[in-house]
């Protein structure tokens, strides 16, 4: 029980497998030590390619792995994602709001949200506090060709082609990070007396021994589910969506603008995502099978494609169906096995939490890689606590979008606001925010997934009313004048950025041609 942990075995390729391998190997691989990382990938099972949107965290993840951002853009059909734009979520009457990645102006030391309450009729919240908005509204880039790799003028993550991304990661892991790629099917699992996984039998590459096994086998969950029988906790009572119809849609011309955000448009019983890559758009409808038929969901999706890309595009679209049971494992790290990716859990893609959870999980494994088997159980316990907490925060944050909606046109929207469908932790926050605006101390942890800025964008984007305490000094006249000056300053910065940034397409074409500089 006291042997050291030198050999990590990742089971499963795809983005989760290769991203985990890259993050862990980048931290530990060296010609000077005994660390080894194997990745077993079945040549027969296609990857599902989940997650075409990332958080800004992906920039530092890629940088840390030593991947050039220029190569990433050139090889993964990547584009810039500056946040999410929501349509029809609040009233279903053509209204829109944004959740940009850049925090409100002066967010560290000044909370502008209380002061915005006085101008809420004139200016949408995000436009008043975030300099990123004109860029988002005009399909402009978050940087220009002189900005170094991974640096930015305003914060951004990516949209990407998941298949191409896994391929780039594979090449980089094998060539630069010493990852040993085994293309074989798993046939059996051998256990130690204590119940750990000792090794994995394969059909064509013999027995692969390991000290720590990472289950990236997707929904099949070969290790954590099939072998260890760790149950999944269903979250369907909070998040109703369990089906998706995904399509790829061509641009009309090679010059069509590339959107700066994921577009999310609410439907009768779900919502449609619209992700712009340089090469195509990824458009899909995620819905609840309990409230919508596949036939109707398909009709809504085709209507959206027709509206935004034309009749021809709608006729040509080939649609793939995905079903899922929203939820996550009761625990993610059991014995000497950690589940990362869809083996750990899956919920609807609103706010694109899939890839960021892979990044966070792999980063924690990398950072806390137990020195020996003895302390692994402690690390596992802490890992499980942290990620159970994170899944709950993601569920709260996604659910927030539904309970703020004032739509009552279908049972789906009405039922989403039923008290028994709202997690208690979320209901408490809402109760508080009726009387005070979200601020730094609303978050418990330093590495919280959603900062209070995100809650502000969604709450005030969706017309939530906070009844300010009239006794509060925060709203006095002097503070109000200071806030006014900041609104003006923000608007000036926004105008300057909009005048100087290239369009997404211009910048991406320049990156293809000239590359971004490292400094």
């Amino acid at each position: 029980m006291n042997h050291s942990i030198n050999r990590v075995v990742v089971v499963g390729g795809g983005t989760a497998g290769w991203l985990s391998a890259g993050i862990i190997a980048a931290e530990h691989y060296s010609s000077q030590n005994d660390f080894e990382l194997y990745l077993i990938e079945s040549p027969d099972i296609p990857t599902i390619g989940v997650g075409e949107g990332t958080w800004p965290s992906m920039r530092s993840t890629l940088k840390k792995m030593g991947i050039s951002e220029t190569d990433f853009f050139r090889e993964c059909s990547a584009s810039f994602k500056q946040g999410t734009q929501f349509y029809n979520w609040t009233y279903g009457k053509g209204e829109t709001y944004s959740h940009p990645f850049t925090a409100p102006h002066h967010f560290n030391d000044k909370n502008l949200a209380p002061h915005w309450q006085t101008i809420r009729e004139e200016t949408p919240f995000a436009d008043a506090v975030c300099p990123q908005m004109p860029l988002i509204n005009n399909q402009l880039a978050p940087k220009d060709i002189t900005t170094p790799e991974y640096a930015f003028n305003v914060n951004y993550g990516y949209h990407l082609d998941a298949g191409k991304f896994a391929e780039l990661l594979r090449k980089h892991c094998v060539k630069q990070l010493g990852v040993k790629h085994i293309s074989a099917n798993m046939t059996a699992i051998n256990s130690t007396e204590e119940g750990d996984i000792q090794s994995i039998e394969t059909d064509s590459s013999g027995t692969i021994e390991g000290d720590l096994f990472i289950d990236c086998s997707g929904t099949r969950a070969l290790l954590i589910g099939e072998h260890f029988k760790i149950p999944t906790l269903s979250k369907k009572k909070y998040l109703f969506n369990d089906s998706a119809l995904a399509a790829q849609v061509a641009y009309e011309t090679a010059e069509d603008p590339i959107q700066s955000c994921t577009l999310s448009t609410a439907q009768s019983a779900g919502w449609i995502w619209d992700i712009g890559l340089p090469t195509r758009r990824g458009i899909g409808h995620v819905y609840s099978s309990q409230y919508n038929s596949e036939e109707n969901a398909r009709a809504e999706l085709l209507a959206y494609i027709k509206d935004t890309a034309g009749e021809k595009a709608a006729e040509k679209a080939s649609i793939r169906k995905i079903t899922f049971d929203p939820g996550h494992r009761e625990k993610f790290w059991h014995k000497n096995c950690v589940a990362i990716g869809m083996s750990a859990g899956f919920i609807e893609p609103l706010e694109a939490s899939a890839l960021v959870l892979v990044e966070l999980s792999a980063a924690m494994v990398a950072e806390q890689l137990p020195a020996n088997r003895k302390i692994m159980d402690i690390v596992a316990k802490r890992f499980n606590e942290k990620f159970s907490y994170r899944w709950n925060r993601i569920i709260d944050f996604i659910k927030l979008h539904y309970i703020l909606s004032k739509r009552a046109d279908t049972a789906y929207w009405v039922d989403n606001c039923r008290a028994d469908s709202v997690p208690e932790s979320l209901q408490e926050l809402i109760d508080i925010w009726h009387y005070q605006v979200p601020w730094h101390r609303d978050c418990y942890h330093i590495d919280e997934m959603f900062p209070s800025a995100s809650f502000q964008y969604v709450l005030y984007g969706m017309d939530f009313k906070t009844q300010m305490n009239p006794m509060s000094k925060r709203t006095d006249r002097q503070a109000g004048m200071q806030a006014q000056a900041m609104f003006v300053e923000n608007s000036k910065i926004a105008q300057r950025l909009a005048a100087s940034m290239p369009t997404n397409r211009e910048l991406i074409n320049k990156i293809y041609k000239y590359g971004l500089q490292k400094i």
Partner: protein
Amino acid sequence: MSNYVVLSPETHHDTRVLTEPGKTQADVVQFTMTHPLEFRNIQACYPIFFSKSRDTGEFFPLALFGFEQGENLFIDQFQWHASYIPMMIERQPFLIGYQKTADDTTNPVVSIDTNSPKVSDSEGQLLFEANQPTDYMKGIMSKLEALHHGHEHNKGFISAITENDLLEPFTLEITLNNGTTNQLMGFYTINEHRLLELGGDTLSEFNQKGYLQPIYMAVASYARIKDLIDKKNALSK
């Protein structure tokens, strides 16, 4: 705005160019682009730094003349006081391009910026006489060709130094005798630590390709910053 048109004796037989550097507003610039083949001459007079093209993000070397936009400390009373004038200043108001002909040979094509303050109808050097280029124009032609050659060489030089991480950003803050401060930002210099770490193979390759000497020329040129500060101090007395 510049307006470049193809140069021809038919159109430009009466056109003249003011050749003295510093005489017109065209030369009142903070820096000009240079290339490694003239670094030896540049470093005798000017600091050599690097900057990024606004259009492509690619690095280019430059000779620095001042601490702020539109400041050229080498010009006084419409005269440029330095023993060497950078080629990119001397070539003005001309540009050279190359055209591929049907039989696959390349022909140089010279253009002139008719909006340049250096272009005149009454003063300066004639470009053509009796439909033939004047000696001045012949001199410009050979300078333009040398410049083209220099810029081609520069492409390999820039790739070599960026691939080896030899550039680093820097900020220079100078305080003048009268107490005012000037900040120079957005430029890049040779990273001397990285330079000293280069291995034998790289050094040998750099040497063969003519990259090693200009790197050290650029390093040596930093001593010229003091000349610029002295000039600025003399001005702000």
